[in-house]
């Protein structure tokens, strides 16, 4: 049995590595200093897809991501690790989307893609931590969902068996295909790049990247469909302009407040109740704890 798997992924700023060098003098974060990475839990999802492929030869894995054209970087990364192809959903009108508009846009792309048995994705992205896009895509496509997956135990007879990691324990569930499964960071780490695949696919490029390549390499991409990363726009996936980007987002950001980290020099406290309470209050007030 072989399957067509779509893996949803996002290119995100590496918010986990906000060290002191990524802080501006006023104590706010310098976003430009953060590298753009493959969202960690999406890599866990890719690994689960690759394991299904290992066990079921003929299975194809397509990475689907929405973002800026540079998100083709994570498509290449996925291909180096074993994915077969990738699509970058990118268009100016998609910008400013909240989770609902994002889910609608991705669901439209999935419909356009058509023939799929399983949609996998990370539980949540580290820049928003909402965990909403997976279940919302499932709803938009009318599919069942399995969230918090730690391990896919098997795919057989049109059903997938999944071990879920919940707050206080584990649950094993069986869901019919097609369905949406979101994978936890506690799942197995993704395998590294495969050296042979890296050599073979290092020139894989999206149309907007190909336009900037030297002519000889661009010609090589044009001649080989395996090296072509698809780029889809809003019109191509038949997206309703009212349901994407800012207009399609019911939630609006009213205000943003930077969390300011102070104290470059050590502050000395004694084992004194008032001083310790003051410190705790300060950490709560600047959202370090609580």
């Amino acid at each position, binding site marked *: 049995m072989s399957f067509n798997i779509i893996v949803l992924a996002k290119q995100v*700023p590496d*918010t*986990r*590595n*906000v*060290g002191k060098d990524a802080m501006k003098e006023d104590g706010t974060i310098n976003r430009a200093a953060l590298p753009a990475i493959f969202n960690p839990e999406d890599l866990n999802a890719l690994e689960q897809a690759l394991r299904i492929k290992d066990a079921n030869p003929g299975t194809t894995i397509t990475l689907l991501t929405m973002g800026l054209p540079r998100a083709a970087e994570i498509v290449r990364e996925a291909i180096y690790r074993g994915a077969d192809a990738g699509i970058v959903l990118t268009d100016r009108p998609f910008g400013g989307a*909240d*989770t*609902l508009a994002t889910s609608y846009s991705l669901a439209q792309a999935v419909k356009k893609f058509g023939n799929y048995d399983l949609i996998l994705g990370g539980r949540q992205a*580290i*820049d*928003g*931590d*909402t965990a*909403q896009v997976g*279940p*919302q895509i*499932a*709803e*938009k496509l009318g599919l*069942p*969902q399995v*969230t*918090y997956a730690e391990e896919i135990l098997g795919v057989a007879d049109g059903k997938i*068996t999944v071990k879920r990691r919940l*707050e206080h*324990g*584990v*649950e094993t*569930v*069986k*869901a019919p295909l097609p369905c949406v499964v979101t994978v936890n*960071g506690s799942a197995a780490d993704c395998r590294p790049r495969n050296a042979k695949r890296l050599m073979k696919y290092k020139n894989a490029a999206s149309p907007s990247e190909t336009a900037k390549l030297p002519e000889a390499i661009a010609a090589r991409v044009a001649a080989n469909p395996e090296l072509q990363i698809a780029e889809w726009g809003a019109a191509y996936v038949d997206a309703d302009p009212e349901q994407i980007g800012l207009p399609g*987002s*019911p*939630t*609006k950001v*009213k*205000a*943003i*407040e*930077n*969390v300011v*980290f102070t104290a470059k020099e*050590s*502050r*000395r*406290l*004694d*084992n004194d*109740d008032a001083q*310790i*309470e003051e410190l*705790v*209050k300060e*950490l*709560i007030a600047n959202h*370090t*704890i*609580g």
Partner: protein
Amino acid sequence: MADNNNIIVYCEYDEGRIADVSLELLTKGRVLADRLGVRLEAVVAGDKLDGIEKQVFPYGVDTVYKFEDARLFPYTSNPHAAILINLFREIKPQICLMGATCIGRDLGPRVSSCLHSGLTADCTALEIGDHKDPKTGKEYTDLLYQIRPAFGGNIVATIVNPECRPQMATVREGVMKKEIRDAAYMGKVVDMDVKKYVDDTDFVVEIIDRHIEKSKINIKNAPIIVAGGYGVGSKENFQLLFDLADTLGAEVGASRAAVDAGFIEHERQIGQTGVTVRPKLYIACGISGQIQHIAGMQESSIIISVNNDPNAPINTIADYVITGDIEEVVPKLIKYYKKNSK
């Protein structure tokens, strides 16, 4: 009071008990309902709900919608989503709150997607306030301000849903305070006909097994780490660090000296020969600060050192230095966090 436009809390239920997080949200919901002059309502779906209303009425609940069916426990996504979607179409609440738990974070997005209502995850504060759209200039009164950290905790955003209802938000357990409004408060119970809300075809996901199992240690991605060194003194004293970690939602780490002394397992070792971490907050307890340890944690955003040696090397990279014994300082941190966090 109007029949529509109320505040509703989805109450999680397990083994006959309403979850603490739901009671915390009812407490908050009561305050918001008073502010808006509307009713506080609760919805519970499960298998044995006899008398369950007694657990929620003291929090000031005016109406409890009970959906009882053997197939509604344990929780699965589609049937519970169908209940909320169809119920909300009928009673049109203005605000819906649920726990930011594995259940709430599975259910909320599915419901919000179907109703096209905005949902904000993991709010740390909820307030009522006005809003003026910066583009259209349109003014809105009494919206729910959904306040949450974003961008790895480096910013705090206030989110509003000006047009769509219900305004939905999830909140983690322990963020809001649980407080009984009136032990004698009495609301109304509405027994719902489950068949009118849930279709048999909604029961698509089958639960094969459920059991309690401790999760693996994950210090690498923990936003807060409480780490202990040789100065903690004993395995027993490490329990204090676990208590602090539990209180703060943190993981416990250790220096090599503490691991070598047998105070704690190797999986928790931080440093060159252990794990490298970059949490938001690192509380180093009784750690002197060998270079190899510092290499594994120096990029932490905020470092607090608790040590009875005012000249411990780690103090030079710490943002805060508390000079004192672990046995005294750590319980104080716990005490004052609990006192001030809610």
